[in-house]
């Protein structure tokens, strides 16, 4: 945006054009992607297939996509994001399996008559290799989704503080989950 006000760019108009076309292309890609997503969601939620409702959906998803399509896809190139989503969807079944195992463990703790001796609440800290915001957010949310562990804080340097309910759920961190997320978000 600020480029146009610099005198150097005014002297070389040939430099301006490619950036403008790539920006326009990027806008078109994000617009189409978010339009498709919004329209699919519209169809799922509306459940009516007559001309009036379809037209309403087309118009409103076009307006919303034009205004906020660049909010949905900020930093990534539109092409890489598909592969990212596919890898993310491949990660989710494993996460649900882990959630299930940890749920059973917490259930066992809760129903155990000598629960107070089994639990050992503590806050552990460890450093993570993950760099990008998306990866850290996914990791923190995965930790919190797994019962027995809650992410308390993540620093800018990637230091995670995690509240664990007993020793066993704390020992599993960072471990498998982090290496899986590194595969999902390669940097």
């Amino acid at each position, binding site marked *: 945006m600020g480029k146009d006000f610099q005198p150097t760019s005014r002297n070389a108009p040939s430099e301006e054009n490619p950036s403008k076309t790539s920006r326009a292309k990027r806008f078109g890609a994000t617009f189409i992607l978010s339009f498709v997503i919004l329209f699919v969601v519209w169809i799922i939620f509306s459940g009516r297939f007559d001309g009036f409702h379809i037209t309403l959906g087309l118009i409103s998803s076009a307006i919303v996509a034009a205004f906020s399509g660049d909010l949905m896809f900020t930093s990534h190139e539109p092409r890489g994001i598909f592969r990212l989503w596919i890898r993310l969807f491949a990660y989710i079944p494993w996460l649900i399996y882990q959630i299930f195992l940890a749920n059973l463990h*917490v259930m066992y*703790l809760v129903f155990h008559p000598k629960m107070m001796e089994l639990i050992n609440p503590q806050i552990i800290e460890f450093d993570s290799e993950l760099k990008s915001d998306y990866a850290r957010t996914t990791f923190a949310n995965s930790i919190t989704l797994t019962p027995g562990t*809650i992410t308390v804080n993540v620093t800018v340097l990637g230091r995670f503080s995690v509240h664990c309910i007993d020793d066993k759920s704390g020992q599993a961190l960072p471990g498998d989950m982090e290496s899986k997320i590194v595969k999902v978000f390669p940097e």
Partner: protein
Amino acid sequence: MKIIVMILLFSGLAFFTGGSIGILRLPDFYSRLHPAGKLDTAGQLLTLSAIAVFVLQDFSLHNFLTATKIVLIVIIVYITSPTATHAIVDAGVRAGLKPWTKEDQS
């Protein structure tokens, strides 16, 4: 098909029961959040998938759309539940509430 729905529904209810009992039995604020925010995710997944299977018993387009909406509810809860739990824990830490540990007790 009905048997699958029943099994899913009752295992989901078992998780919800465990969550409620855990809230009552655990010693402090932070550890109570473990069953409160999390056993519900499994219970919610099981009960809602039971409803989705029940709806899909006689297959039609509208029932399929209803099942899709239920799956969307599951996804939304799986995104918002850890965020809310983290917000509560963060509020507790910022307010200076110390976590309960075994050493304090003995």
